[in-house]
């Protein structure tokens, strides 16, 4: 039993370390854009579509419509439609917008998906209870950001 747990731990450590991810605090924004992949790996557009439409993950469709996702019910309109986002923006700009949209659109309503500090009364998920600031994880992981960027690049008009 003990051995199994130890093996599991080792595996997840290895998975985390092998790609030398950029930590949320180390991302460098140039005029809102982020040039380097956060994981050094290409994104998977199909995974990105899942992240964007899932309530528990990105839930981007809460605020944006995406015509290419006709099966996703109740798409919101707090933000602009993402149709054609792949024409309007370069990959680096999209990476910046998804990681921390406030670097591109000052004061935007859009949440920062790859950020772990600077919050007022951060909660432990949706429990309404406080979270230890040191325990905050970004809303999306580095690879999930890359997957979303890959999907957005497919949205051409």
């Amino acid at each position: 039993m003990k051995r199994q747990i130890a093996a599991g731990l080792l595996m997840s450590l290895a998975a985390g370390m092998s790609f030398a991810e950029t930590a949320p605090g180390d991302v460098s924004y140039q005029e809102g854009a982020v040039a380097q992949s956060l994981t050094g790996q290409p994104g998977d557009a199909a995974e990105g579509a899942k992240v964007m439409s899932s309530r528990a993950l990105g839930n981007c469709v809460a605020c944006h419509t995406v015509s290419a996702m006709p099966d996703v019910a109740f798409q919101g309109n707090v933000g602009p439609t993402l149709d054609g986002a792949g024409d309007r923006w370069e990959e680096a700009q999209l990476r910046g917008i998804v990681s921390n949209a406030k670097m591109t659109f000052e004061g935007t309503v859009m949440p920062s998906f790859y950020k772990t500090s600077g919050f007022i009364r951060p909660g432990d998920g949706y429990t309404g209870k406080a979270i230890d600031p040191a325990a905050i994880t970004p809303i999306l992981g580095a690879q999930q950001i890359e997957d979303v960027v890959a999907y957005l690049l497919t949205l051409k008009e």
Partner: protein
Amino acid sequence: ALVGLSAMADPAEDELVINGDITIVTHTTKAPDYIEGLSEQYSGWHFREDDTRDMERDDFDNPGMLGVEAARDSWAEADGTEGKSCASCHNEPESMAGVRPVMPKFNTEKGEMYTLEMYINQCRTERMGAEAWGWDDAAMVNMTALISSVSRGMPVNVAIDGPAAPYWEQGKEMYYTRYGQLELSCANCHEQNYGNHIRADHLSQGQTNAFPTYRLKTASLNSIHNRFKGCIRDTRAETFKPGSAEFIALELYVASRGNGLSVEGPSVRN
């Protein structure tokens, strides 16, 4: 697609008369001058579906009125060491007409801002020798529904000056604070985006004139502070407690954004 969505997103053009008798001001073309971010005011009623709106037109169709009926019974029931009921001192519940529109208000005797719940508990503990009700106890929410119902149609008119001013300022600051990991303020949703959809939810102005609200989703009456708690929790934030000093200040500020709309509670929402 967007054209269709924005047509859907408009507040419904409709008028509310309850029981063919009580006219409710659910829309004004001019918000109070001290609310910079709003030009018009809308009750949340305009943002609900046709069938939900219809439930408010007749008390027999409004499930919130069951809470009012329950409170009418408790109004006349003696409780506590003094052997008194609300009726012993206040006669008919109708004597409370005009109380809801000005709540919360500064209680001079106590030297602090008092909500309707606090006045009720003051009478229970100090005048009846009864136990205080919890903020979200059914008995409490029902009693606030009864006291609101007898003021339906009267304009919300909370005072924001004099001793109320510091509470109002505190509430205003909270309204524009971007709480939680999603960094969203009340204003981000209810001032900048009312009329828009956030996923399936049609965002209203987040007014409090229609409280308590009967929520079809939970099949129960919902207090103002309980609604605030849910909205802050949904920003992935540590919320505040019903009855907290913060929510009392926020209640005053939000109520003042609705000054001029009619008291509408108990209302029906999803």
